[in-house]
């Protein structure tokens, strides 16, 4: 149920953001402050999401083998690996660390 509420709310809100300029703004620019914030927000949010999804499970703080997976993913990214390789390396490193612990 909650998932369906999120689905409807996020779909409507996202569409509003996508369509605002083509439907209403035609030609005008965003205020520089808004443009700069919109440019910087994803970095802050994605970093938070990466870290929080590493150290939580079902709402509780849990430090486990996923930390090894995240470190392995970072190494793969430094080595310029494509997305699929990064994700597989993270899963494999986590599975390996779990089997050793």
């Amino acid at each position, binding site marked *: 149920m*909650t*998932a369906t*509420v*999120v*689905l409807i709310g*996020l*779909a409507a*809100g*996202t569409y509003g*953001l*996508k*369509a605002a*300029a*083509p*439907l209403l*703004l*035609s030609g005008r620019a*965003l205020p520089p402050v808004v*443009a*700069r914030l*919109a*440019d*910087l*927000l*994803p*970095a*802050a*949010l*994605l*970093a*938070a*999401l*990466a*870290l*929080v999804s*590493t*150290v*939580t*499970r*079902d*709402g509780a*703080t849990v430090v486990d*083998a*996923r930390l*090894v*997976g995240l470190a392995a*993913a970072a190494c793969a*990214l430094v080595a310029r690996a494509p*997305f*699929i390789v*990064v*994700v597989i390396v*993270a*899963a*494999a*490193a*986590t*599975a*390996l660390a*779990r089997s050793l612990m």
Partner: protein
Amino acid sequence: MAVTPFGVAFGIAAANAGLATWQASAFSLFVFAGSAQFAAVEVLGGGGSAVAAIAAGLLLNLRSLAFGVTMSTALVGPWWKRAAWSQLMIDESTAVGSAQSEHRWRRYGYLCAGLSIFATWNLTTFVGATALSSGGDVVTTWGIDATIPAAFLALLWPRLADAGQRRSALAGGLVALTLVPLTPAGVPILASTLGVLAGGQRRREPEPATT
């Protein structure tokens, strides 16, 4: 075709967070914004409220507003056409479209990139969501739970080339980690938006990141 593994990963993340296959597919059809879909599903799976999940997704998508401004001069026509085209407003379609010089080719590039990614994204979401319906121990035994933080890190990575973005990411990450043990699920993600204050002064127009 870089979206193929990402779509499968989203389907898996959605199933992992307890969403039904039709819900995962509806996200990809009606939201159609990769990182926001991941964020909403992650907050939901972590036990966050609906409001927190929607807010996390929308904040991540605030950049679509800037993409719309970039593309609006090329997306001309009757309102119903502009309304339909707008659903394809993502990083990749804006990147391809804005790389062309003439308005007609900007629109053509935007639509071609947008439509091909829309088709791939929805197909691969479905594959990922159905692949994990077995659920349970498979997720931890194979380390599938670690693919979600890895996906977020991979999305973040290309942004880190810029110093302001690095400060924003570092501050956002620290705020969120500090709040994790103290606040209800979902709040640390929303509070991480304070990280932009560390990002510093404006330097250029936002550019779409190619993932």
